[in-house]
């Protein structure tokens, strides 16, 4: 039961060895020594430089929804092994077991019904501790079912994206999840319900090129890595140096692919406002249908 044992911070840029154990940690961005509890209480955001550390899906949802309002759904939709895939000695089902231990989750997408600042919604969040939140069949199916929940309950859909891309171990079926989730987004669109996406660090590959960039409103967390092809792939293919700030949330805002950047500590209030302002409007829609 490793979930409660872990208590250290790392980021992809620094090896975890550089971060001391104990109650105090050194922020990977500003280098300030911070009381660990202060970061935790601040939703994993450094109180000095506002570096947004990655946050687990459950933690994220807990930070947003009204206490006790979250009703988790579709946890029992889990991964199969259609390709009988193995890397070395480790089979894909074994990898999944390891991912479950690492994350305490049964797949990389957690979602369900909730209210945010009293406004009802269907909320989902990706967790990069589960095989880098890569998208396979079970994840695609959970996404499709959350969409169905939103459509049937006539609630807006909010999705927190994070992903390293497609789940390699499911091969072509993982690729097909891009089509499947896009087809699901169509259903929210057709139901006249708002679909809000929040891009978090990192969102890339097949998730970025499907449901994560199909939001009616696309929000991003500050400095999040957000892009389609990974920087190393581009560097390798083009033999060029990638400019600083490439594929950040701010870069995507500048290029017109993100509506706004919102700090994690202000996310709840922001989403609450959007949900209030965008509550499904029956009367005007009826009017439009008559014309």
């Amino acid at each position, binding site marked *: *039961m490793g979930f*409660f044992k*872990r208590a*250290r*911070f*790392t980021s992809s840029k620094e*090896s*975890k060895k550089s971060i001391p154990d104990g109650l105090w940690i050194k922020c990977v961005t500003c280098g300030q020594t911070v009381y660990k509890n202060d970061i935790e209480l601040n939703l994993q955001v450094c109180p000095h430089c506002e570096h947004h550390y990655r946050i*687990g899906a459950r*933690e994220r949802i*807990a930070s947003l929804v*009204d206490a006790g309002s979250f009703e*988790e759904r579709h946890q*029992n*939709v*889990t*991964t199969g*092994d259609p390709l009988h895939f193995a890397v*070395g000695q480790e089979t894909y089902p074994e990898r999944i077991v390891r991912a*479950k231990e690492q994350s*305490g989750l*049964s797949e990389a997408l957690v979602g369900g019904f909730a209210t945010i600042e009293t406004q009802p919604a269907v909320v989902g969040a990706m967790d*990069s*501790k589960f095989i*880098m939140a*890569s998208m396979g*069949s079970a994840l*695609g199916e959970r996404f499709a079912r959350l969409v169905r929940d939103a459509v049937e309950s006539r609630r807006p859909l909010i999705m927190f994206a994070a992903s*390293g*891309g*497609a789940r*390699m*171990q*499911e*091969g*072509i*079926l*993982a*690729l*097909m*999840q*891009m*089509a499947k989730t896009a*087809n699901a987004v*169509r259903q929210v669109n057709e139901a006249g319900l708002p679909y809000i996406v929040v891009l978090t660090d990192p969102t*890339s*590959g*097949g998730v970025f*090129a*499907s449901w*994560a*960039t199909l939001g009616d409103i696309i929000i991003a967390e500050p400095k999040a890595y957000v892009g*389609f*092809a990974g920087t190393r*792939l*581009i560097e390798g*293919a083009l033999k060029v140096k990638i*400019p600083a700030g490439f594929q950040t949330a701010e870069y995507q805002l500048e*290029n017109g*692919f993100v509506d706004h950047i919102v700090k994690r500590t202000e996310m709840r209030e922001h989403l609450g406002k959007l949900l209030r302002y965008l509550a499904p409007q029956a009367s005007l829609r009826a009017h439009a249908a008559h014309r």
Partner: protein
Amino acid sequence: MTKKRSQGNSEQILPFEKPLFELREIIEATESPEERAKVEQQLRDREKAVFGGITAWERVQLARHPLRPRMLDYTSRILDDFIELHGDRNSGDDPAMICGIGRFNGQTIFVIGQQKGVSTDEKVRCNFGMAHPEGYRKSLRIMKLAERLGYPVVSFVDTPAAHPGIEAEQRGQGPAIANNLLECSRLNTPMLSVILSEGGSGGALAIAMGDEVLMFEHAVYMICPPERCAEILWRDAEKKELAASALRVSAADLKELGVIDRILPEPEGGAHRNPEGAAAVLSDAIGLFLERAAQGAYTLAARQQKFEAMGVWDEVPMESLMAQLLVPDEDPALPLGPAAPEESTGLETEAMARGSE
């Protein structure tokens, strides 16, 4: 030009094709008709054995064979006429994505597809079939036009991937592909997609959401090139052979997984040795598709259901799930403690950095 290409030279013969070439040379040198027929039979048997027994990686090589007919090699043979349309009406035109109005046996079809290029010049101009966002937007423009005017769409898939580059990112490669997927899920006109040789990643899927998806016998359709998969999972591009076989990329695999509807048989020696024969097979398939489309065989609802059902997952009873996870679930709104550090396998960050589709 195509004739010349189809003959090939020594560099364009893959190692496993060599015995076939030797037999062909013998046939050409043999004068007695009886002897000739005997060797021809030998060649057919040998071909069956070779193509039946090649590894997944050899399949990838075959699909990438420089002599494989390209989209324009097919359209020039199959269509009575083709009027190319240019531009995405947004920012540019992408020579990697060819779109236009085709006439097939006196009927109008809208055609979209990737062109990998034949000559070095053309390959560079077409960017080896790797489209930019403009290409995907152009293809969508043409699909929507076909829908509005009530004509069917035929898409030809032949790409290693969507172009990975700085400008492509700047102009929204991800969003362009995503938008194609969304719009294809509600494109209300019959669409046929054919994987010609290499179908790679979201860059292929963006034009491959047909009511019917066909695949040439020696084509491959993959989530990403095996080299990249090997880097991500084995952290070694040289493990590409392992990756290719694990990913299951052949037409037969894809048929079994329910991703494609039908395999188009290739003429003896493969499409790259007989483009005419391959074009005839493709022409028949398009004819059949148009016939069935005219009979109303393809509905939007059926296409939507097909993609809704894609994938393989389990549904486990809640109780056994809880036993597996051992996570308190009484009040999920309760903060569950500090973030867990990533395991230092490097695998996941590798996957992230590569942006694997």
